[in-house]
């Protein structure tokens, strides 16, 4: 009985480690995204990664305490990126006159 339980714990610990590494890489992308749209996408993925981390924690501890938080994140996590794409991105890079490609830099 102890063998599969230990296997499950090892798997879910690896899952939590993966989620934490993914969150760190996303923070890197958010800090130096070339444009605000990259940050918007990264924030959207970050909400999904937070939901996945809370799910891994819930699977590890077998409790459903964080399920409402996951629900709210799934329901409202996209509003930040929608707001950025709708109102800030056009202001962040104001009036790209000619659509000549490759002017974004860092590409």
């Amino acid at each position: 009985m102890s063998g599969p339980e230990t296997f499950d714990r090892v798997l879910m610990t690896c899952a939590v480690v993966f989620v934490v590494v993914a969150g760190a890489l996303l923070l890197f992308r958010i800090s130096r995204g070339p444009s605000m749209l990259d940050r918007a996408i990264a924030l959207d993925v970050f909400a999904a990664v937070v939901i996945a981390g809370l799910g891994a924690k819930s699977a590890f501890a077998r409790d459903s305490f964080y399920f409402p938080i996951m629900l709210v994140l799934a329901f409202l996590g996209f509003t930040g990126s929608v707001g950025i794409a709708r109102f800030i991105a056009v202001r962040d890079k104001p009036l790209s006159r000619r659509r000549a490609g490759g002017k974004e830099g860092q590409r």
Partner: protein
Amino acid sequence: MNVWSQVADTAGAVLVFLGAAISLLGVVGMVKLPDVLSRSHAATKPQTLGLLLVLAGVGLRLHSGMDLATLALIGFFQLMTGPVAAHLVARSAYRTGQIERGELLFDDLDAQLTEPEPETEPGTEPEPGTGPERDQG
């Protein structure tokens, strides 16, 4: 019955592990890909497949009906809200000219936007001259 419960627990742990691994792979793609649209392509993997695998794993380890319903709602809302954000981000990237137009194989939207003034910026103050093509993206 105890054997099947153990099998369900192990399968749930494996699904959680696979979901976290797919999330990590998608995030690595988001870090390494060079463009807004490419990153948006990589961003859909953690949002849909990774998260659904994790939720399925959690549902296999928790056996309550209310928990399963909540997990189904989480997956449903994530699937509903993901394309909205991705669509708006890609639309804004196209409108503000932040994509590589030379690397596109097909550009069906370009025929609608061949105006002499390309800055039909969405969402700001309404300009009367750029009315018809505003909400077609």
